[in-house]
Structures are given as C-alpha cells and as structure tokens.
C-alpha cells in the first residue's frame, strides 16, 4: 500500500478546504475554468461522490444511524473509492485533478465529533498528498452569515445535532463550525496548508490561487492527456 507522501505521479492535485461558507467551491470552479481555457486536461472530484457508497450515506443520514465512528469510516470508504477511481488514475495519466474537500475535511469534522486525531489520520494514510492544499479561512461569524443567507435550514449532521451540544440548530452549528475551524488552524502547520484569506474579494483570492497553481504547471502537461472538450 502506497501511503501519503509517497505517491509519485506525473499529474497535479490541487485541493480546496475550509468551513462551510468559506467560498472554496466558488474558487475551485473559477480555477477549473481557467485551467480548461489554458488547455490543460482537468478532472474534478467532489467530496461524497462515490457511486458505491452514496446510497448508504443517504439512508444513514435520513435514518440517523451514524455514530462519530461510523460517520468517519463511511466517509473514508467514500474517499477510498474516489481515490481508487477518480484521483489516482487521472494523476497517473498526467492530468490535473481538482478536489473539492479532501482528507483535511475528515480530520476537522471527525475530530470535532470526538474521534481520536491519530486514528483518523491513520485511516486516510492511503491518500495521495496534494500538490497544493488551499485552506480558505473565513472567520466564524462571516462563514455563518454566508451559510444562513444561502440555506433556509440546516441538516441534522451538518449542524452537528448528533453531538447534542445544543437543542438549537443554529447554536449547535456554531459550536460545531467553531471546533472545525480550530482543527483547520492546527492543520495549517501540520500539513503545510496554503492559507487564503477568504474575506478578500473573490477576484483577489482567485488571482492568488492562480499565481500559486501556476508555479506547478508546465506546458508539457497539456500534451499528456487529451480530454473531450
């Protein structure tokens, strides 16, 4: 089993991380457009996207079957499928893979739910180390305002209601997001995450992101894979 830091592929892997409402998906979408326009072969990979696990996750959320441990393990299963199916093969072929949320999401959420830090990190040891992992950092109140504006109601696990920190959904969500943000802050140093100030304008953030990504691109990557337009 090849583990984190030891995978060697010709492609590039860029991931975005951050709390809900940090604007990371918007940024990744813009990066995708740019890379495609530049002529690079780009692959997109999202959190919770495994066709083999999706139904199980949906059913478990609906019926509230999860504990922190099974929540963690089922998401790891989903991520394993994503790695085996959508991440390693395109990287081997020399493509650029963009991932919306990566292992750091699991580290932040699962530890916030009480799972052991070392145990969760061990589970994801099979993951490919990203070329760059961006962490879009928004202060808690900013992120919460953005979420409140975008979504009429929070889902049970999303709000961390399973942890019984509070009977109030909004309070629970705030507590949960606060814990998640603490975990991200710890990981900036631990995993060398590239922090982007998510309170800046969207264009400024995108400019910074493109500047950093540009350092890892070579003309040769364009010739590696030809994807249908």
């Amino acid at each position: 089993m090849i583990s984190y830091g030891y995978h060697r592929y010709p492609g590039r892997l860029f991931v975005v991380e951050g709390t809900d409402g940090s604007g990371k998906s918007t940024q990744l979408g813009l990066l995708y457009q740019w890379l495609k326009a530049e002529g690079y072969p780009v692959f997109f990979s999202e959190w919770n996207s495994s066709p083999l696990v999706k139904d199980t996750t949906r059913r478990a959320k609906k019926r509230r079957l999860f504990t922190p441990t099974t929540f963690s393990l089922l998401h790891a299963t989903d991520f394993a499928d994503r790695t085996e199916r959508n991440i390693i093969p395109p990287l081997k072929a020399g493509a650029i893979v963009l991932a919306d949320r990566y292992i750091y999401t699991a580290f932040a959420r699962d530890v916030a739910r009480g799972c052991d830090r070392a145990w969760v990190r061990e589970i994801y040891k099979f993951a490919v180390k990203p070329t760059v992992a961006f962490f879009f950092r928004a202060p808690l109140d900013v992120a919460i305002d953005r979420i409140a504006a975008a979504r009429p109601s929070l889902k049970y696990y999303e709000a961390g209601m399973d942890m019984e920190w509070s009977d109030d959904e909004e309070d629970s969500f705030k507590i949960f997001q606060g814990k998640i943000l603490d975990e991200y802050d710890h990981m900036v140093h631990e995993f060398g995450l590239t922090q982007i100030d998510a309170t800046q304008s969207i264009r400024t953030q995108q400019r910074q992101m493109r500047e950093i990504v540009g350092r890892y691109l070579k003309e040769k990557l364009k010739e590696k894979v030809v994807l249908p337009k």
Partner: protein
Amino acid sequence: MKEMKFYGTALPALEIEPYSGKLIVIEGTDGVGRSTHVALLRTSLESAGHAVLDTGMTRSVLAGRGIKNARAGNTLGSLTLQLYYATDFADRLEKEMLPALRAGFVVLTDRYIYSAIARAVVRGADPAWIRAIYGMAVVPDAVFYLRLRSTQELAARVLASGHGFDYWESGMDLRLGTDYYDSFVAYQKLLLREFDRMSGEYGFRVIDAARPIRRVAGELLRAVKTVIGDEPAGQDGNVSPAISAASADAKKALPTTPTPQRPQEP
C-alpha cells in the same frame, strides 16, 4: 464482571465499564464450517439458558446492504472494500455487540477483525494500517480458530454447501488463477498463511476442523462453556450463573436489530 479492553484506541464517547457478557469469536477461512458451528453453538447455549446474540461480517444495518450491492458490481476497489468492512464492523460493534455484552449476553460472532485483516493484507494493504483501524475492537474473551490446512478439502466443502464458489471468497479480484477453483485454492492458501501469522499475536485457540462436524462441535461447546463458566474448569471456572438469570431482563435493553436466522457467508 470484566473490564473492557481494546486492541488500540477505544471508540469515542464510549463509557468503558465492566461488562458481564462474553464475546466469543469463531474464525476460520471460507468453507471451514464457521456458520454451521455458530448455529450449533447458539442452539446449545440457548438450551442451557444463555441469551445469545449472533452476528457476522456484512450484517450491519448501516452498511450491510451497501457492501452487498458494491460486491455485486465490477467497480469495487480493494481499499474501498476494506473500509466498507470496517464501517460494517464498527456499526455492529457499537449497536449490537457492546450493548449485548453490557446486558450479559453471550455474543457469538462469525468472524471478527481477523478475517478482515487477513483479507486486507493479502490484497496488499499495510498490515499496520489495517490493525490500527481495527484498534477500535474489543479484545474478545476467546477466539476459536477453526483450522483446516487442505485447500482442496475447503473447496470440496464449499461445493457441498450447495452455494458454489463466490467471486470474492475465491479471490477472483486478485487474479490468482484462471478459474474459480484455482483461484479459490490459491487465495485460501494466502489467507491460511495470514491466519497462522495472527494465531500467536492474538492468542487464537486452534480447533482442528479436519475432523467430522460432530467432534468439532463437541470440542467447541466444551471450550465455550469453560469460557463462559458453565462447567467446572479448575480454579477460575466458578463464574456466576447469574448470566442466564440476567439475560431475560437484558433482552429488553437490546436494540431491536433483526438478526438473520440463517448465517450468511460474508
């Protein structure tokens, strides 16, 4: 009452408290007769007045169906399968086995973490990685390893069971042979080697499963009864008969998870 012990990091938010039940594991390769023996044991123990919960791989409410569907297709990767098994195990541990142990049940499990570890390792997983994941497992009161060295005999037993060869039990994903039989034989050899390696590490009690069912069942029942303290077994064989008395109340405390009557081969 016994202190709960874990192989590694215990489950989060778990109150580690003494428990009065017994966790008995029946392990062994495919075709060795585990499910037959679990069924026989269950009947014997229940007629002796013990409340029994039996469980086995891929039977969890959470992940059982997902695993079956994933195995029915042709896109399931090895890491994904190993983590799916771990999810299934965790769900059964938290929702079935631990509550039953606390309530004084005899928990009979057809396979435990050892099969999962063996399957992962023969598929190239890092042995330390898979063990760390299963660090959440409770150390059982006894692990009975039904051992049969002849893979030809195992294959014959699988055929005799009437189900024929299964894709995963034959290790067809590993491409060890050109047909199910060759693959099964080669795959079970690899598994046997892993089980033998784990035998000392995890303190397996080896039961020679090459003998007729009746003899194996007899030895197994005597050994299990000693573990749960039903029969005088020297100095420490005087454990409480209260287990069976407690179990009537205990049944109410159990979650209403349906346990399939016919043990399935995972």
